[in-house]
């Protein structure tokens, strides 16, 4: 071909690539906007509300004030050293964007930046995935991977507009770090490994899941060493990454000295040590004879490993190295969390996913995933080892904890794209149809080939595709067979790709785009109705209570109360203090007078409960109630007993069969207070638990008074009664009043009938 044609083709490819990237960006961003279009530009769920609040704090204060932020409005009365216990990457990034946009004359509300943060970064994730996959195969696989990454529901689930969570930026950083690591490992370039370290630092500043990188890269290096693939390239890449990355990560206040003191990070340190020895061994090997080297190697390896392991045990035993964290344990010993840390087990995203979740989040990529892994095994270059380690490890993790599906999704997209692109390499190649070679030419080419093959059997695999094309001049019949087969195969797979796009859009639109602060529902006539009880209640709190009022609610709502109502909370989603959470749990599961005592001791003014019985909302407090009981039982096993909340037949009931402990508990009373009387016949129907509640079950409320209940009874707020003016106990006072009232009634009957005097 002529030089100019080649150049033109290359130029065309570049333009096409650019267009594809623009399209991928567009798709990545727009498919995440369902929630904004359907609802409004609003922060979703729970954790994002804290991040949003922290970001607001950051843009209104200086960076140092932010790092030193002591938050006295949460965990009352303890407070939280927020600046030192958060991962600041997310907030600083959006803060920086806000400042830059203001500098160039675009003063955008910080809320909008936070809402649209995740979609914007998903575009970058797609780009990083492209670069990553390009290193593994070629740019066509890279483009496929980027497109998959842009729309895979497994990633969208945590990155729709409004889901302003650490994961929104963390997955981008994860992919960028991996991309630079692969480049560094391939070339041995110090620049690339430094970039990998820098992005690792960024990742550490953004998400606790950075430990995954901390362990995966050393694992990659370790496996390569075991396979005997040590090279000095590997040495320079790993040591640079480890030294810079570890030092940098220790600059994050929350991480501090963890990288040298916690067992989670010891693997990286161990491999760092190992690679020094291997490098030394490599040097010695080049200096002494093979026999002697073997002896030296075995003795030194045995010594080093035994010293390393016993040292680790000793230091852990002496308390210099922190043992593994609870979440880490629960990954390996799957029963650990349930027995020892109910607070981790109680979170729904820490549950194991059933198989439909995998298919739901990745559709046909999920069965391409093992195929892609196998195909990589056939080549098994150094960088492929990384993908294989990642795949096996992460599919285990995702199998144990549903939230880790998020880290599995990128590698599924990558391997799936590699598999599909290998298929297309073969079956989308219609050059046979254009072949115009004369038989003579082909003969000579073939002879060359055969010679080459006999001399170099290793090369055989790589060459067969080329051979196929130039091998012979096919007859028209053979040509027809070939083209038909290729057309059928490639068209079915194009169809599956189309289906994948439809599936992703369906899942994103129907399942992952609800803000969970505002809930969509349907009117009887089929029109959409929005249930906005949460915001209604939080706004009520904001407008009608004292600015320093303390609100007790289960920890799930802590961030939302802080973010939307701007009131002080006792516990929130940070869950750093199990005992404090157990106090709230104990108050909720105790009888009214005891609960009042506990709450008064903590200076609480209001109690907020979420009750889904009238609506059929299954995520309400009564359904979480058992966890409150369990968590407080962990601290006060003598006072709170889970068994007492179950009926004799071991059922969890709230109707007439409920146990006395259940009916007396504060949570029960606050949830069902006056609930039956809103029904015409006085029999309330709890639509969540499908049980009937009458006024006989719901005892009178003496220590609390209802101050607010939202439209559909979803959120109910109660005020703790202020001390009785006569110094009586509220229970006694209420009893006295009730007696008085019944007395009054009697007296009323006795009153003489007054007739109209004429």
């Amino acid at each position: 071909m002529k030089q100019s044609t080649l150049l033109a083709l290359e130029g065309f490819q570049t333009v096409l690539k650019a267009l594809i990237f623009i399209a991928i960006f567009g798709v990545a961003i727009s498919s995440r906007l369902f929630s904004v279009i359907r609802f409004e530009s609003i922060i979703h769920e729970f954790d994002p509300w804290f991040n949003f609040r922290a970001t607001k704090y950051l843009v209104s204060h200086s960076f140092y004030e932010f790092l030193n932020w002591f938050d006295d409005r949460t965990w009352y009365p303890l407070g939280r050293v927020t600046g030192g216990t958060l991962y600041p990457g997310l907030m600083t990034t959006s803060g920086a964007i806000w400042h830059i946009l203001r500098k160039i004359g675009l003063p955008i509300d910080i809320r909008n930046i936070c809402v649209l943060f995740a979609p914007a970064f998903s575009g970058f994730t797609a780009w990083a995935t492209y670069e990553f996959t390009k290193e593994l195969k070629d740019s066509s696989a890279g483009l496929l991977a980027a497109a998959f990454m842009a729309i895979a529901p497994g990633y969208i689930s945590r990155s729709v507009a409004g889901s302003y969570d650490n994961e929104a930026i963390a997955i981008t950083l994860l992919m960028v770090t991996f991309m630079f690591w692969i480049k560094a490992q391939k070339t041995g370039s110090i620049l690339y490994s430094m970039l990998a370290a820098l992005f690792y630092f960024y990742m550490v500043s953004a998400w606790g899941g950075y430990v995954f990188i901390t362990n995966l890269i050393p694992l990659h290096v370790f496996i390569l060493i075991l396979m005997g693939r040590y090279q000095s390239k590997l040495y320079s890449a790993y040591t640079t990454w480890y030294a810079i990355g570890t030092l940098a990560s220790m600059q994050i206040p929350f991480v501090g000295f963890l990288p040298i003191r916690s067992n989670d990070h010891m693997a990286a340190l161990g491999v760092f040590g190992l690679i020094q020895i291997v490098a030394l061994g490599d040097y010695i090997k080049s200096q002494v004879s093979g026999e002697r080297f073997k002896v030296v190697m075995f003795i030194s390896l045995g010594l080093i490993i035994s010293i390393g392991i016993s040292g680790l045990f000793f230091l852990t035993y002496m308390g210099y190295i922190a043992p593994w964290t609870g979440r880490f344990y629960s990954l390996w010993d799957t029963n650990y969390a349930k027995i020892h840390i109910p607070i981790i087990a109680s979170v729904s995203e820490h549950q194991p996913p059933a198989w439909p979740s995998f298919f739901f989040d990745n559709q046909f990529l999920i069965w391409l995933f093992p195929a892609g892994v196998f195909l990589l095994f056939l080549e098994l270059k150094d960088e492929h080892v990384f993908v294989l380690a990642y795949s096996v490890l992460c599919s285990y993790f995702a199998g144990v904890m549903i939230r880790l599906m998020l880290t599995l999704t990128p590698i599924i997209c990558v391997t799936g794209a590699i598999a599909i692109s290998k298929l297309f390499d073969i079956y989308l190649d219609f050059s046979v149809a254009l072949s115009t070679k004369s038989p003579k030419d082909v003969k000579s080419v073939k002879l060359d080939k055969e010679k080459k093959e006999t001399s170099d059997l290793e090369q055989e695999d790589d060459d067969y595709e080329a051979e196929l094309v130039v091998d012979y001049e096919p007859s028209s019949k053979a040509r027809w067979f070939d083209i038909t087969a290729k057309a059928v195969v490639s068209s079915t797979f194009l169809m599956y790709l189309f289906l994948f796009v439809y599936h992703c859009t369906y899942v994103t639109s129907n399942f992952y785009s609800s803000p969970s602060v505002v809930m969509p529902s349907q009117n009887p006539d089929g029109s959409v109705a929005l249930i906005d009880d949460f915001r209604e209640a939080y706004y009520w709190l904001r407008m009608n209570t004292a600015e320093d009022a303390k609100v007790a609610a289960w920890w799930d709502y802590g961030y939302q109360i802080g973010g939307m109502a701007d009131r002080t909370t006792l516990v929130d989603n940070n869950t750093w203090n199990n005992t404090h959470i157990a106090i709230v749990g104990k108050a909720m599961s105790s009888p009214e007078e005891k609960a009042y005592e506990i709450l008064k001791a903590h200076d609480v003014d209001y109690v907020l409960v979420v009750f889904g019985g009238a609506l059929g909302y299954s995520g309400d407090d009564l359904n979480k109630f058992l966890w409150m009981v369990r968590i407080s039982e962990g601290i006060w096993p003598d006072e709170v007993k889970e068994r007492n909340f179950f009926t004799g037949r071991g059922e969890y009931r709230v109707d007439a069969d409920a146990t006395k402990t259940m009916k007396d508990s504060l949570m029960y009373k606050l949830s069902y207070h006056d609930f039956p009387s809103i029904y015409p016949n006085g029999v309330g129907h709890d639509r969540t638990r499908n049980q009937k509640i009458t006024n006989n079950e719901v005892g009178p409320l003496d220590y609390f008074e209802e101050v607010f209940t939202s439209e559909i009874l979803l959120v109910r707020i109660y005020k703790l009664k202020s001390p009785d003016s006569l110094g009586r106990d509220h229970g006694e006072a209420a009893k006295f009043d009730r007696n008085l009232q019944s007395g009054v009634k009697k007296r009323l009957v006795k009153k003489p009938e007054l007739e109209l005097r004429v």
Partner: protein
Amino acid sequence: MRLSTVFATFLVWYMSLVTAISNKRLLELSQKDGNVIKLNSKNYEKILNSPRKSDIVVFFTATATQFSCTLCLEMSPSFDVVANSWFSDHANGISKELENHGLFFAKSDFNAESKQLFSQFQLTSVPAFLVFKAGGKSINDVEKITVATELGANHLNFLADNIKNAVQIPDLFVYEPINWGACITTVVTVAIVTFVLVRYTSALLNVLTLRPLWGIACSFCITTLIAGAMFIKIRGSPFSGMSADRKSIVYFLEGQLQNQYAIESQIITVLYSVLASSFIGLICVVPYIQKWYQKKQHYGKAAIVNFSLALFFTAVIYIFYSALMAVFALKNTGYPFKLFKNPFK
């Protein structure tokens, strides 16, 4: 008249003396039954409905297959272990620290002979544990203990803790028996493995360095994991379920994305494996065979084989993928996509 009253009183006193069950009698009974007394409708009155000086822990179970109570079957050995541990320390069943305070174990399996016993305590669910405390006068002095365990868990710990809590005997220790069978198996396996390792080192090394072998192992491992193997291990899901009318077996928990039976994972593993291997067939096998024929100069054959194999693998993928989509639609009611529509329906 007066004499008869005295006589009646004497009789009652005598009766109570006779019926009060002594620790010695309990010990005899338990020795006869191998540490755990077997209760049925005939003997339970005698044993439980009388003043006693010992704690009696009774385990109610239903081992008959028609109840399909897996938990009962799983817990039974643990209960025996607790009983055996107690009697290995205290041959006479009497605590060494509490004076004249015994502890005995009994078990009752639900069948025609013990039906009355179960209705006596109004038991509606098994496994159940009742404790008859020492000093209790009659069958009504009873305490039910709930053992918070679930399928597949280590029942012994839960059970031992709960029994210890209920009976408050300080010197009740539980010894997990050494599983000699497992020990021997381990020893034999280790011996065989070492022998093979030493004898066939080079052959093994060749096998171990086979890439496709590793590839298959890894891919299969991944396939089982993404088919929900960990879910089953952690949750201990039942293998399959029964339909509401209890007439047919149900293989899929329909309409539940977050829950599944164990058999679902096996079905899905097979589907995924077939799909993945057909895909690999398309990429590796088809071109390889075509090339093989071409090398032998059978160009016509090469084209036909290539054509038919490619179509075969595509068809397999299509069929199994449609099956997968159909199964997924079962789990996710309202899922709008399918690959195959039955034209006869």
